[in-house]
C-alpha cells in the first residue's frame, strides 16, 4: 500500500511535512501496512497538500489535506480510496489535469523524484538510449525538427544553438542549464528540479553527447534551496549508479555535472551574465558577439539552455521529432508550461500545446480570480512582460501572436490581478525592479530606470501629468533602443502597456 505526500516546496509551504508526519503516525498507531512516498507536485497548488493513495483502479486524490483531517481520512477508509469530503476521485480524471498534455511533466508528481528505478520504469533514459544509436548531427536534427524553441524567454530554436556549438572546434565544451528562473509568476523549472530531476540530468547528458561537451553546470537560483538540494542528491545518485561521469549511462562517453548556486541577482538569468557569475565574477552582461555558443563558459563553446528546454529533450529523442512537433500552432511547436499565478482561484501548472488562449487559461483552468473580484489585468512573461486587459484575453499563447500584441510569452508565467490593482503602481514597480536589478553596464537602464520611478511618482502625484507622460514615453524609447540587454530593453513593455491599456490609472479619469 502506497501513499503519496508531495515534498514540492509549494506543498511544503502549506503544511505537507506536517501532514506526512500525521499520516505516518496514524499508520503506526493503527498498525497498517502502508508506506509514505514523498513525490513532486502535480501542480494543482490550490489543492495542496494533495495526498494520493494507490488503489486497484489507479491513484485517488484527497486535498487540500490538513493535519486535523488526517484521522478522519483513515476512519473513512481512504487507504482503499473510499469517499470523504476531501476526496477528489481518480487523480488522472481531475479535469484540470486530464485536459492537459503533459509531455515534459509526464512524470512530475507521480514518481519519487530521487528514485532512479521509478524514473526508468516510466520511460526514463529511453531518450538517451536512442541518442546513443544516433550520430551527434542526427540528435541535433531531431531537436531541430521537433521545433523546440528555448523556454527561457527568447524562444530561440534549440537545435540551431546546438549546431553552432557542435561546429565550434575546441578542447573543452560545456552544457550550462539556466535554472535562475527569476520571473515572478513562474515555477515550472523549480517543479521539474524538485519533482523529476533525472529528466533534466538526462536532457543535459544528451546535449553533451550531441555537441561534444563532457562537462555541465546547472546554475540554480539561491531562492530555491529545495531544488538545489534535490539536484545535489540526484547528481550524487547519478554518479553512484553510473549515469554520470566516465562511461555515463554505459555510453562509453564522459559527462560530468555539477549544480551551482546563484546569489540573488535577477540579471544572472541572462545567459552572459550567468556565465560571468559561474566564473566567479560580478554578473555583468557581456556584449554579444561573441555568442556563448562560440565563446561561453571559461571562453569555451557553451550551450546555455533553460531547464524546461533541456528537460524536454528526452521525450523528443524518445518519441521522435514528429511526435513533439505535432502539438502546437504556427511556429510555436510542442507544449508550453503555463504557470497560473497571482490572484487566481486555481493556480498551478498547465502544460498544454501552444495555442490555448489566455482567457481559456485564466478561466477554464484557473477559475477566475482568487478573491472573486472582477478581473482587471494580467501580466504574462514575468517582470518584463506586458500588462493585458480583458480585451486582449483572446490572444493565443503563441510566441508570434503575443509579439503582435506587444507582449511576451517568455517563460509562460501568467499573473492575474483583480480590479483593485493600480496599474500606475505596477508600472512604477517595473521601473523600480529594473533599477534594483540593473547590472550597471549601460546608462539607459541604470539611470533610466531610476528616472522612470521619479517620473511615474510625479504622474501619480498628479504633477503636470500630460508633460510627465510624454517624458515617460521618451524615456521608454531611450531604454528600448539604447539598452545592451533585455532588462533595460524590455522594462518599457510593462510600463507602456500599462499606460496604453489602463489610461485611467495615469490620468485620474478615464480619458
Amino acid at each position, binding site marked *: 500500500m502506497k501513499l503519496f505526500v508531495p515534498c514540492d*516546496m*509549494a506543498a*511544503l*509551504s*502549506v503544511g505537507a511535512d506536517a501532514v506526512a508526519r500525521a499520516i505516518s503516525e496514524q499508520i503506526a498507531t493503527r498498525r497498517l501496512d502502508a508506506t509514505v512516498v514523498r513525490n513532486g507536485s502535480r501542480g494543482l*497548488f*490550490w489543492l*495542496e497538500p494533495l495526498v494520493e493513495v494507490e488503489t486497484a483502479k489507479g491513484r485517488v486524490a484527497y486535498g487540500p489535506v490538513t493535519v486535523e483531517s488526517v484521522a478522519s481520512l483513515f476512519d473513512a477508509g481512504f487507504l482503499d480510496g473510499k469517499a470523504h469530503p476531501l476526496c477528489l476521485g481518480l487523480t488522472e480524471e481531475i479535469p484540470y489535469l486530464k485536459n492537459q498534455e503533459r509531455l515534459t511533466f509526464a512524470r512530475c508528481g507521480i514518481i519519487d523524484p530521487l528514485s532512479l528505478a521509478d524514473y526508468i520504469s516510466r520511460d526514463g533514459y529511453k531518450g538517451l538510449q536512442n541518442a546513443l544509436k544516433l550520430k551527434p548531427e542526427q540528435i541535433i536534427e531531431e531537436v531541430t525538427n521537433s521545433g523546440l524553441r528555448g523556454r527561457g524567454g527568447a524562444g530561440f530554436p534549440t537545435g540551431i544553438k546546438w549546431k553552432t556549438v557542435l561546429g565550434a572546434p575546441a578542447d573543452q565544451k560545456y552544457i550550462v542549464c539556466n535554472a535562475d*528562473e*527569476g*520571473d*515572478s*509568476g*513562474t*515555477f515550472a*523549472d*523549480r517543479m521539474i528540479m524538485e519533482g523529476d530531476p533525472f529528466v533534466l540530468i538526462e536532457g543535459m547528458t544528451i546535449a553533451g553527447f550531441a555537441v561534444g561537451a563532457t562537462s555541465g553546470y546547472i546554475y540554480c537560483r*539561491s*531562492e*530555491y*534551496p*529545495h*531544488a538545489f538540494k534535490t539536484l545535489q542528491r540526484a547528481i550524487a545518485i547519478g554518479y553512484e549508479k553510473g549515469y554520470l561521469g566516465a562511461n555515463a549511462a554505459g555510453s562509453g562517453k564522459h559527462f560530468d555535472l555539477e549544480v*551551482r*548556486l*546563484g*546569489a*540573488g*541577482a*535577477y540579471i544572472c538569468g541572462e545567459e552572459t551574465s550567468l556565465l560571468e*557569475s*559561474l*566564473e*566567479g*565574477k*560580478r*554578473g*555583468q552582461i557581456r556584449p554579444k558577439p561573441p555568442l556563448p555558443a562560440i565563446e561561453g563558459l*571559461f571562453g569555451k563553446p557553451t550551450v546555455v539552455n533553460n531547464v524546461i528546454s533541456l528537460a524536454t529533450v528526452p521525450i523528443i529523442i524518445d518519441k521522435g521529432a514528429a511526435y513533439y512537433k505535432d502539438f502546437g500552432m504556427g511556429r510555436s511547436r510542442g507544449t508550453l508550461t503555463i*504557470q*497560473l*499565478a*497571482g*490572484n*487566481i482561484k486555481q*493556480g*498551478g501548472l498547465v502544460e498544454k500545446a501552444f495555442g490555448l488562449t489566455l482567457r481559456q487559461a485564466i478561466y477554464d483552468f484557473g477559475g477566475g480570480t*482568487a478573491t472573486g473580484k472582477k478581473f482587471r489585468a494580467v501580466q504574462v512573461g514575468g*517582470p518584463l512582460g506586458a500588462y493585458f486587459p480583458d480585451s486582449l484575453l483572446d490572444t493565443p499563447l503563441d510566441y508570434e501572436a503575443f509579439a503582435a500584441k506587444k507582449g511576451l510569452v517568455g517563460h509562460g*508565467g501568467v*499573473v*492575474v*490581478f*483583480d480590479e483593485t*490593482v493600480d496599474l500606475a503602481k*505596477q508600472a512604477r*514597480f517595473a521601473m523600480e*525592479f529594473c533599477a*534594483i*536589478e540593473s547590472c550597471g553596464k549601460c546608462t539607459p537602464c541604470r539611470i533610466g530606470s531610476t528616472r522612470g520611478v521619479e517620473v511615474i511618482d510625479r504622474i501619480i502625484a498628479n504633477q503636470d501629468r500630460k508633460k510627465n507622460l510624454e517624458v515617460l514615453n521618451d524615456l521608454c524609447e531611450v531604454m528600448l533602443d539604447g539598452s545592451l540587454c533585455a532588462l533595460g530593453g524590455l522594462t518599457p513593455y510593462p510600463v507602456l502597456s500599462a499606460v496604453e491599456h489602463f489610461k485611467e490609472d495615469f490620468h485620474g479619469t478615464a480619458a
Partner: protein
Amino acid sequence: MQAWDNERAVSLVEQRKNMPGALLPILHALQEEFGYVDPSVVPAIADALNLSKADVHGTISFYHDFRHHPPGRHVLKMCRAESCQSMGCDAVIGHVEKKLGAKLGETTADGTFTLDAVYCLGNCSLSPAVLLDGKPYGRVSAQVADFLIDDARRRA
C-alpha cells in the same frame, strides 16, 4: 550559526580555491557557516584566487545575497514581486515592518529578526510567499505572519 572565526574561514576558502569559478561557492560556504561574509576575509580570498581585493569586494557587493554583517537569529525573506503583489503582499510587509520595528533589509534592534526582500520564491500560486529560516510558507496574510513571528520568538 557560528561566530566569525578567521581560521575556520580561511580553511573554507582553501578547501574550495581550486574549483573552477570558485568565488561564489566560497562566499556561499562562508555565509552558510557564519551567516555573513566578514570583510576581513577579503584579502585571504583575493590571495587564494589570485584576484585583486577590489575584484573580490566588487563581486561580494554585486550580489544581493551576501551580507556584510551578522543577521538576526531568524531571517524572514518576504517576496515582493508581482504575483505576491496581486495578493496583497505590500500590506503584509507593511504590517510585519511595523510589528518588528524594522524595514526590509534591516535587523531588529534586539537581533531577533532580519527582514529581507526577495523577488519571487517560485510559490506564486500560493502568494503571498515567504521563507522563514529557509522554510517556505504560502498564503501568508498578516495573521499568518504574526503567528510565524510569535512562534519563532518562542523558539528564541
